[in-house]
């Protein structure tokens, strides 16, 4: 057993009654091929992967399927409602996703603005309420708003997934304080869902006590997605261990590391 595995032996990510070892969740969009996607998934150590629901091309329906490459028995498939702009659209998409996969987990996304892809929190909450009642395990993509985060927990969401920067922006951690407040205001897992640009962006987020990271574009658009997946795997572990280890306080002035007494040649 590796050092980090021993140290994290009792450390699970628990969502909707299921336990996961990995705190890195990956998307499956924008990869060059299904094969590359599969290799990235394996390299990342992720156990959860998001997918989308789209119309079949009726003039060319015989194309290969992503699920021919990713074994749903081995990985938790997390269908999303990406592209939906109202609660109603998101609910209908979630119903199709459940029928298509037999999985009642849904990454709920209701977008409010095309340019920033920021969520419409009112519509997202409306859809979340409905889908929880329909028996879905709902993981909503939300703004990093601690007040709203609690509302999502109150209606029965299995986790909350705040952004740290807009989807696909790769801007990294923008508002650590909001994530700290969200961690304080809810007891369900907090998964940072958007804004990660590279492996280096992950430890500062995980160090805040955030439970998991979801990333897609930073992998798909990396020059070498497999190397980035490995880097992200260890960045997530490093961030988690650093959080559990507890950081030293920040100070304005220097504090020497070596003893002040007994310095040679000092009178």
């Amino acid at each position, binding site marked *: 057993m590796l050092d980090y595995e021993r140290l994290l032996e009792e450390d699970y990510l628990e969502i909707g009654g299921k336990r996961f070892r990995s705190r890195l969740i990956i998307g499956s969009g924008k990869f060059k091929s299904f094969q590359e996607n599969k290799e990235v998934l394996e390299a990342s150590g992720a156990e959860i992967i998001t*997918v989308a629901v789209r119309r079949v091309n009726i003039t060319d329906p015989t194309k290969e399927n992503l*699920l021919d490459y990713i074994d*749903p028995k081995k990985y938790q498939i997390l269908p999303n409602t990406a592209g939906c702009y109202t609660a109603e659209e998101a609910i209908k998409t979630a119903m199709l996703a459940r029928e*298509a996969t037999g999985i009642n987990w849904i990454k709920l996304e209701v977008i409010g603005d095309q340019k920033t892809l920021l969520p419409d929190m009112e519509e997202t909450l409306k859809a979340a309420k409905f889908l929880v009642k329909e028996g879905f395990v709902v993981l909503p993509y939300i703004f990093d708003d601690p007040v709203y985060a609690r509302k999502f927990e109150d209606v029965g969401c299995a986790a909350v997934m705040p952004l740290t920067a807009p989807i696909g922006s790769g801007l990294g951690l923008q508002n650590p304080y909001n994530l700290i407040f969200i961690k304080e205001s809810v007891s369900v897992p907090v998964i940072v869902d958007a804004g990660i640009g590279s492996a280096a962006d992950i430890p500062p987020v995980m160090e805040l006590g955030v439970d998991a990271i979801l990333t*897609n574009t930073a992998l798909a658009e990396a020059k070498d997605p497999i190397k980035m997946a490995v880097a992200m795997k260890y960045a997530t572990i490093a961030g988690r261990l650093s959080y559990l280890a507890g950081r030293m306080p920040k100070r304005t002035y220097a504090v020497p590391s070596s003893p002040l007494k007994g310095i040679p040649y000092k009178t």
Partner: protein
Amino acid sequence: MKVFVNGRELEVSERISLLDLLGLLNMEVKAFGFAISVNEEVVPKSRYGEYILKEGDKVEIVNIVGGG
């Protein structure tokens, strides 16, 4: 009669079932990663054979693709 499949108008014979429509489109029903709704209501896979389409029905045929 006319029906709409994934937003496209299609001329089909009267009393065609969903299963027949899929045959017409050269599509096979996959147990996993495939779903259909008619007029925004999901139709379970077990009912494709008995589900008869009506004039103007809006059929959505979806599958699972990569997404974040």
